[in-house]
């Protein structure tokens, strides 16, 4: 049996060009269309089309050879299954595994779909009809998912599929029935296709012109006029991290609405009071600054290269407990000394990612602190932060502008103070041009005009800003607020229009990001350096616990900061209060009031561990005593009582037996005994050690990753990080390509191996065997099969007459070596040694290279050669 082509090469080419290519096109179209409805496809329809096309192409070409369907399709499925298993095994525990598996699943699905379609085109006569039916069914299902159907959508969904169906049924039959022997073959096909295109075009035009009314009627019936504003998927200012924690969105742009859920993100104690009073002064918690406007994407972006970068963004999860990270350069870059002071805050994270750091503007210090045991369920981690804040900032100014006379007075004082700033003449040019950048264009000119118009009566920058704020709070002729707060501002209908102008002049509804963005441009239009800050709005609801603030998910916020020389960046919020939104109804819970301050923290190596007496001895290199850090020049031995201590690793709480000699640990004590030690010389570590009780009462031990482990972990991460789906795709394609190449060249390689053996052997018996095998293999591959003949007959009757060789006399000698124990005579030995190369040459001379090449590609013959016939 040999595997032959079903059709001539010409016909296969016609199939690929006329059937497969259009099928790829319709596949691309369908994937693009379906992609709009199913988020799992992830906007990667181009890639998916490639998957489908790969399946189509290989399937069609493969089944143009007489391969059996079931016996080839099942191995394919198995192969895909195995690869998917392997992917799952390789990427255990990583989130990438999920994505890789999903992507591979999509690949498998599309590849198999393509494969089946290719098979159908190659083998089944009525396949185009089936395919058309399936495509239509898919489109019907997809369209039925949508709630609002417009005539346009119907046409988009069905017209291409219908055209494709007509085309494919027509063309498939054309390709099937064509006579590829005919000389004008290509022209014949071309003529038919042009004819078809003309007919299809005429039909379409007729349909559209005649049934326009009907389409409109359908539209009305299904979609209610198509004018309904569709709610877009809400996007939140916070984003869900993979591990379920929350972070502020990096690319907070001007899109989507805000999610208003009531999940607690974090709580904070803020030691900020109005000067000279006991009234708490809440401040906005900043996460990031958006300073740069990308004109191309029309979005605001963060920029790590912004001038005077005063953003302090440590990763608290990477700082050992009670150790600190500070960046004093921030204090200078904040560019303000007037009315500034340093305050502290303690942040207890609930949903907030352990990696995130939030603090009121200009933080410079971060110290992870322990969470009290009872609160660990609720708050995973905590840190203390220090900020260089301005007295002029307050979260009150926006939401409670009126009411408390203290506040009103204070606001007035604030404005008076800021009125001292008249201009930015002394500022650096690059700084000014960066923070007052505004793109050119009509829409920005209109913003500029609006800004000028609104502030024509204002003299100082702060007055201008107040005027802007008044604008946002102003009321229209009917006494209704001009601007409204809404979570769903709607999509601007005109695609080319700028969202900001749409918001400012037409819609006037939006959420904080809209207000912040619009204000930023108004300010910059006036030449006031400004930036958008994101973070959390602080709402004071804490009558019981002064200074404690609760932050829920819906408090994620964006506002503007304007720069005042000497005072630094001042918060400026123009977002109007929401008429619908109510204050968080849930009363805030109890904060972990007794903020534990570690009296004593030591850092060093474990020397001995006694699990019975619960004693640990360690070598202290570094310690913190009463919040003061001591670097010890000579390590000090410390005997510790750990009977009450909890031992933590980054994976969680562990038992004392996990503690091993040589481990790097930090030991902490909250003990009163420690608190009561008052050293005479607070700088002498020796004195402190002498006063520490022996053994020292320790409450918490944290095992740190040693550097080696850290590095290993990093390396593992590094190895895993550059993993990309594209790479996986390329690698798997390379593997598949390699396999295909190997499979194609395998028959030839086997031949070369036999040939090598035949030439290499010198013992007549072995040489005759390998010569015989090699020859028979070569003949088999070239399609000269022994069939019913015995080898000798085969040689005598078919091979020798054809190639004019002495194969039969060789076979006689070979059979003698095989079945007899008699030694060969010299003449027989000569026959053996002089047989192979001349024969090989004779065969090659008779059969041209092209023919040999084609025949050597036929893997099936090779399989045939090596399989036993069934009786």
């Amino acid at each position, binding site marked *: 049996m040999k595997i032959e082509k079903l059709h001539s090469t010409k016909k296969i080419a016609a199939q690929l060009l006329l059937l497969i290519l259009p099928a790829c096109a319709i596949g691309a179209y369908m994937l693009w269309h379906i992609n709009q409805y199913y988020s799992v496809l992830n906007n990667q329809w181009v890639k998916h089309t490639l998957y489908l096309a790969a399946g189509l192409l290989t399937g069609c070409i493969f089944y143009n050879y007489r391969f059996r369907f079931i016996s080839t399709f099942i191995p394919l499925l198995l192969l895909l299954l195995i690869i998917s298993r392997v992917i799952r095994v390789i990427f255990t525990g990583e989130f990438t595994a999920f994505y890789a598996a999903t992507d591979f699943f999509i690949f498998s699905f599309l590849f198999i779909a393509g494969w089946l379609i290719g098979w159908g085109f190659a083998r089944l006569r009525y396949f185009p009809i089936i395919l058309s039916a399936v495509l239509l069914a898919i489109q019907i299902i997809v369209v039925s998912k949508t709630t609002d159907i417009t005539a346009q959508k119907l046409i988009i969904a069905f017209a291409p599929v219908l055209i494709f169906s007509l085309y494919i049924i027509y063309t498939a039959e054309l390709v099937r029935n064509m006579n590829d022997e005919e000389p004008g073959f290509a022209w014949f096909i071309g003529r038919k296709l042009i004819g078809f295109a003309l007919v299809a075009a005429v039909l379409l035009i007729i349909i559209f012109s005649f049934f326009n009314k009907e389409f409109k009627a359908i539209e009305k019936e299904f979609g209610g006029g198509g004018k309904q504003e569709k709610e877009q998927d809400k996007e939140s200012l916070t984003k869900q991290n993979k591990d379920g924690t929350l972070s502020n969105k990096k690319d907070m742009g001007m899109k989507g609405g805000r999610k208003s859920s009531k999940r607690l993100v974090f709580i904070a104690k803020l030691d900020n009071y109005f000067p000279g009073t006991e009234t708490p002064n809440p401040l906005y918690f900043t996460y990031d600054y958006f300073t740069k406007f990308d004109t191309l994407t029309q979005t605001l972006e963060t920029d790590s290269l912004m001038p005077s970068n005063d953003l302090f963004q440590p990763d608290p999860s990477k700082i050992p407990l009670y150790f600190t990270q500070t960046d004093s350069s921030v204090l200078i870059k904040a560019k303000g000394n007037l009315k500034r002071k340093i305050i502290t805050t303690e942040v207890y994270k609930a949903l907030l990612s352990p990696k995130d750091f939030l603090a009121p503007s200009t933080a410079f210090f971060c110290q992870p602190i322990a969470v009290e045991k009872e609160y660990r369920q609720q708050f995973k981690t905590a840190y203390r932060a220090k900020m260089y804040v301005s007295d002029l900032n307050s979260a009150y100014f926006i939401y409670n502008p009126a009411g408390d006379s203290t506040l009103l007075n204070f606001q007035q004082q604030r404005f008076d103070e800021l009125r001292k700033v008249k201009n930015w003449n002394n500022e650096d040019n690059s700084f000014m041009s960066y923070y007052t950048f505004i793109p050119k264009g009509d829409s920005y000119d209109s913003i500029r005009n609006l800004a000028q118009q609104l502030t024509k009566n204002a003299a100082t920058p702060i007055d201008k800003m107040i005027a802007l704020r008044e604008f946002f709070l102003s009321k229209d002729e009917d006494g209704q607020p001009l601007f409204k707060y809404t979570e769903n501002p709607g999509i601007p209908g005109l695609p080319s229009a700028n969202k900001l102008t749409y918001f400012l002049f037409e819609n006037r509804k939006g959420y904080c990001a809209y207000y912040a963005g619009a204000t930023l441009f108004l300010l910059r239009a006036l030449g006031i350096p400004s930036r958008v800050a994101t973070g959390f709005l602080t709402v004071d609801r804490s009558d019981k616990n002064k200074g404690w603030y609760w932050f829920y998910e819906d408090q994620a916020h964006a506002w503007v900061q304007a720069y005042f020389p000497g005072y630094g960046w001042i918060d400026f919020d123009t977002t109007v209060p929401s008429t619908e939104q109510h204050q968080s109804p849930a009363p805030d819970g109890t904060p972990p009031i007794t903020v534990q301050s570690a009296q004593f923290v030591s850092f060093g190596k474990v020397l001995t561990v006694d699990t019975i007496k619960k004693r640990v001895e360690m070598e202290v290199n570094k310690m913190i005593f009463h919040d003061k850090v001591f670097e010890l020049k000579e390590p000090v031995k410390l005997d510790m009582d750990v009977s009450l201590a909890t031992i933590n690793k980054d994976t969680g709480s562990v038992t004392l037996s996990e503690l091993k000699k040589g481990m790097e640990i930090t030991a902490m004590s909250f003990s009163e005994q420690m608190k009561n030690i008052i050293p005479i010389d607070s700088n002498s570590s020796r004195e402190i050690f002498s006063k520490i009780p022996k053994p020292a009462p320790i409450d918490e031990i944290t095992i740190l990753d040693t550097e080696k482990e850290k590095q290993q972990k990093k390396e593992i991460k590094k190895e895993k990080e550059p993993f990309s789906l594209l790479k996986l795709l390329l690698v798997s394609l390379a593997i598949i390509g390699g396999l295909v190449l190997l499979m194609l060249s395998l028959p030839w390689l086997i031949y070369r191996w036999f040939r090598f053996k035949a030439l290499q052997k010198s013992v007549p018996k072995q040489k005759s*065997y390998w010569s015989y095998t090699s020859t028979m293999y070569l003949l088999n591959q070239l399609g000269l099969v022994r069939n019913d003949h*015995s080898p000798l007959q085969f040689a005598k009757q078919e091979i020798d007459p054809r190639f004019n060789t002495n194969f039969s006399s060789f076979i006689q000698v070979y059979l003698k070596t095989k*079945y007899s124990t008699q030694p060969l005579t010299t003449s027989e030995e000569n026959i053996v040694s002089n047989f192979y190369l001349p024969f090989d040459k004779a065969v090659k001379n008779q059969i041209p290279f092209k023919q040999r090449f084609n025949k050597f590609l036929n893997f099936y013959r090779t399989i045939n050669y090596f399989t036993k016939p069934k009786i």
Partner: protein
Amino acid sequence: MEQQVNTDTALQNIQRLTDNIETVIKGKRNQIKFVLTALLAKGHILMEDNPGTGKTVMAKTLAQSISGSHDQSVNFKRIQFTPDLLPMDLIGSHIFDDVKKEFIFKKGPLFCNVLLADEINRASPKVQSALLECMAETQITMGELTYKLDNLFFTIATQNPVEMEGTYPLPAAQLDRFFIKIIFGYVDEETELNIYKDYMGINNNLNNIQQVLGIDEILFLQQQSENVFVHEEIIKAVRNIVWSTRRNQDILLGASTRSGITFLKCLKAYALVNKRTYVIEDDVNDLCLPVLDHRLIYRNKEDKANALAGIRNAEMERLSKLKINA
């Protein structure tokens, strides 16, 4: 170990015999080989073909090529089988001798060296069984007396595949006695033309056949064929083929163990006929159908062509890929 055959003389003798027969029987080299194989394997041969294809000439030529005692050619007898033939007509009968006043045994035509049993299927089963007993036992039992046949007793039976009315087809057990069954067949066009051209010559040749070998030499060749070397793999192949016929679904009755032994005997003889002292896979290929086909009972007539050939091909495939001694 392969026994050292007195190769040269044996092989020369075979060559002489073959050549001699070929002077008369043209274009039938394979058939001659099969006949000689059956002869050397101490067996008998059944030829099936239409009348006039040269079966009788074949038998005659063979007989005349072998010299018996007194420079005469060996005893050649021919019996034309008919339904009314009686066993006595074959083996002879006791007749009363008037002179000696006693019954003496008058030998029938069976007492010969080469017997041509023409159209064996036309005789009654009684006669058939009488013949076949002789073939198997090389002796004739008449009442209390047993008569030994000659050392060289070779039967060439023929059968006509057409005109089956009024015939008694041989039962499988009796067919088993024939080592080889061949279809004699027509010669090819060119040979046929040559035959016509010198048809007189055939007659002349037939009349002037030389006696190339003596009975002793034939007996020696028979003995020599026993010494032909058979490789273990060939024996295995015979075993495999025999077993396969028993397992095959299209075959009702598979080959017996005796068939296998016969097969091996024939292989050895065939190798010798082909001037070899060892059996090769081609021998298996050539002999499989002639030796085994008539012993099998097939489910359908249509299967006949394929079943055994398939088995043979499979075994040949195995043998041809086998790596022995290399």
